[in-house]
């Protein structure tokens, strides 16, 4: 089928299912950024596939006019990996929260990165478990008091950007729902990147942990002259706890998983090969 000929606006990418997020939730900004990127990149509706886990953020796919999959908690990445590898023509997004992606799903992150699966993984990091009503998450600050941590958490928070950099992901960026325009640019860049792109979005939860103020005070775009091929510099910015640096931290070119796979398939291709060829090898 032909691509859509008419020009589409980001509104056209709304599915008609109304987002159920609380008014003011940071996730709306991410939603708009994604709609915007899809419109600007003119991705046909039927070629978008979005996989997500469970959480407020995980409800995302249903709100976009696209093929979507609201899976189980923590498995957005393997789900999306399967989609992309089964049909490389799809534009694939994986979506989740900080609990979904860094806690229960934390084991998948480095593996998606080392495979360099061509998809964009957006984590809406609100430093809290939103959907289950406010338990601390792996990115919650030490000492956070909630019902599940009435005396304050004892654990240090994780630094997701540092970890994904250490996993040598081919595109690493951070955005902030408090800066929706910059965020929209980032999401588009992530989707344009061929290979695994990781975008951490600081997306405050107004109901359980409103961090707009805290982060507005320290958010800053990475310096114009930041060299996105410099892993050392990227790591330093990621580990800086005084400033919340925003933008593309790191980017490198590398063949994506499906490209490597396609090469392999070409390499082993044999004309006329079929099940019978395999069976015949076992004739006694």
């Amino acid at each position, binding site marked *: 089928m032909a691509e859509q000929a008419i020009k589409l606006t980001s509104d056209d990418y709304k599915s008609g*299912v109304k987002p159920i997020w609380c008014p003011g939730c940071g996730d709306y900004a991410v939603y708009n950024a994604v709609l915007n990127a899809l419109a600007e990149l003119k991705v046909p509706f039927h070629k978008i596939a979005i996989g997500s886990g469970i959480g407020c953020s995980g409800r995302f796919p*249903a709100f976009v006019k696209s093929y979507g999959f*609201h899976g189980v908690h923590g498995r957005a990445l*393997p789900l999306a*990996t399967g989609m992309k590898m089964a*049909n490389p023509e799809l534009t694939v997004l994986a979506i989740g929260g900080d609990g979904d992606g860094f806690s229960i799903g934390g084991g998948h992150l480095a593996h998606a990165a080392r495979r360099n699966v061509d998809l964009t993984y957006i984590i809406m990091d609100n430093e809290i478990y939103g959907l289950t009503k406010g338990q601390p998450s792996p990115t919650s600050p030490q000492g956070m008091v909630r019902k599940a941590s009435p005396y304050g958490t004892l654990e240090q928070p994780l630094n997701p950007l540092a970890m994904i950099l250490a996993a040598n992901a081919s595109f690493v960026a951070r955005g902030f729902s408090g800066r929706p325009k910059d965020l929209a640019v980032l999401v588009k860049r992530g989707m344009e990147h061929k290979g695994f792109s990781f975008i951490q979005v600081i997306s405050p939860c107004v109901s359980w942990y409103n961090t707009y103020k805290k982060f507005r005070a320290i958010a800053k775009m990475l310096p114009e002259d930041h060299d996105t091929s410099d892993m050392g510099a990227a790591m330093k910015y990621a580990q800086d706890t005084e400033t919340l640096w925003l933008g593309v931290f790191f980017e490198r070119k590398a063949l994506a998983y499906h490209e490597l796979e396609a090469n392999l*398939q070409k390499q082993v291709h044999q004309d006329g090969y079929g099940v019978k060829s*395999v*069976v015949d090898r076992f004739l006694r």
Partner: protein
Amino acid sequence: MAVNDLVLRIGGESGDGYVSTGDILGRISAQSGYEVYTFRTFPAEILGGHVMFQVRIGTKKVTSRGDKLDILVATNQDGYEKHYRDLREDGLIVYDSNSTEIPAEGGWESLGVPVVDIARKLKYPRGKNAVLLGALVHLIGLNVEEAEKMIMRRWGRKSAEIGQKNIEVMRAGLDYAAENWPEVTSYRLLAPKAGGEERLIMDGNQAISIGALAGGANFYGGYPITPASSIMEFLAAELPKFGGVMIQAEDEIAAINMVIGASFAGAHAMTATSGPGVALMSEALGLASITEIPVVLVDVQRVGPSTGMPTKTDQSDLNLAIYGTAGEAPKVVLAVGNVEECFYVMGAAFSAAEHFQVPVLVLSDQDLSNRIQTVPVFDINRVKRLSRVLPDLDSGKEYERYALTESGISPMSIPGMEGGYYTAESLEHKTKGAPSYEPDNRNQQMKKRCRKMETISNEMVNWELFKYHGDRNPEIAVLGWGTSEGAVVEAIDRCRAKGISVGAFYTNLLHPLPAEKISEFVEGAKVIFVPELNYRGQYANWLRSQLGLEAVRYNRYDGLPFIAGEIEAEIEKLAAQIAAF
């Protein structure tokens, strides 16, 4: 008098390569036109340790590992000690007389071969296996040319010289045996049927892999685990040639979720694992069920619970397969019992998954996974290949992914199809996929999904997934599944020869259970007998829970497959009880 059925076991140190001697012996036999069935154990050690390799060779079809041994080949003292009890009273022990002593007491015959000496004399000390092979080729009367061909194929692949050396050594072993063991016919095989049918020789995991390809598999996501890994390895080599993809995932949870994602995107997707992996996949199986995504999962059962005995066989994941999801998740459970049906059942598995949009579990087991059998050449055209029901997206109506159809099967679009977008939703959902907590909607969707089980029942009953053995209206009705079949078939033959009325019904379809077929079969039976390789009698319980049937159970759970003799004995006991009644 020469025989038409011979059971031979080699026992020794794993590192010494005697397993491959057994394997080669089996392949020479197959090549020569015999029917072959192998059985082996694995050492507990990671390298070395005691192993045994058993091969049964027949002029007619052989379906189990055999009862007592006709020939025991002891390549070291352990090889004797650990196995002589399994030798038939007047059996033969062939042993390495350089390393092993056979006490005089036994009633059996023995032939010592100075394996080390012979190999050394020919300046090829690594040729011990070939010496032994030669001796055995003579003893059981295999075709020497076939033996030479096979040696070249196995040992001569990298260097023709090594192949030749092995042939030379093999011939020396053969000569030694010929001198010291003039033709004793009771260990010699009758000639195979001339111009017998074509046969494949392969193991269960290979047949499953090829069956998957025939069923259309083009995506495999998996994680290594004994005894399933060789399916992944087979498909790693083959799938790319079919334009397919194999991904070794970071764990089983990732594997099954990749499979679900791939299937959603249109692939015929599968995974294979064993008990611990199935347990980890349980959550995602529920996901596939509620989102109605086709998935094929092969469970090559091993002994549990937990890590258990990974290299031993068992049938104890039936409960897990049927019941092991949170909530109520329609799915299909199939089982395979021999190498041949591994192939065809995989076709049925993909057809069921794709057509009914359910997860399909296929239960195999460790014994079957690496047992080599000669089997009739697969008829690729016989493989079932039903596809997904696609929606008519040009109808002008808005597409309803989870439409409330009568069959329960709602036409399913695939990413890339214009106008077919929807969200596969793990929450309870409305017909278009949007989440819903409404009681009425819940009732409708739940009924719709569960209605598929009836549709499946009605359709799959016609899929040739059932087999009858022995009497069709027996006094003793055996109900079985999976790996026990071969031993049961032989036991039934023997019992019927003694005048006992006994027959068996085997089904590949375990869930939904073919209720009518089973009820019909057991009608009129005086007793129902269910042999299983597990402790609880899971199939017997399943039969009771579904059909209210009461059965005499026979359970083994020590990690070894059944032998025909023990089943025979149980059936005879039942026959005696019936007679006395």
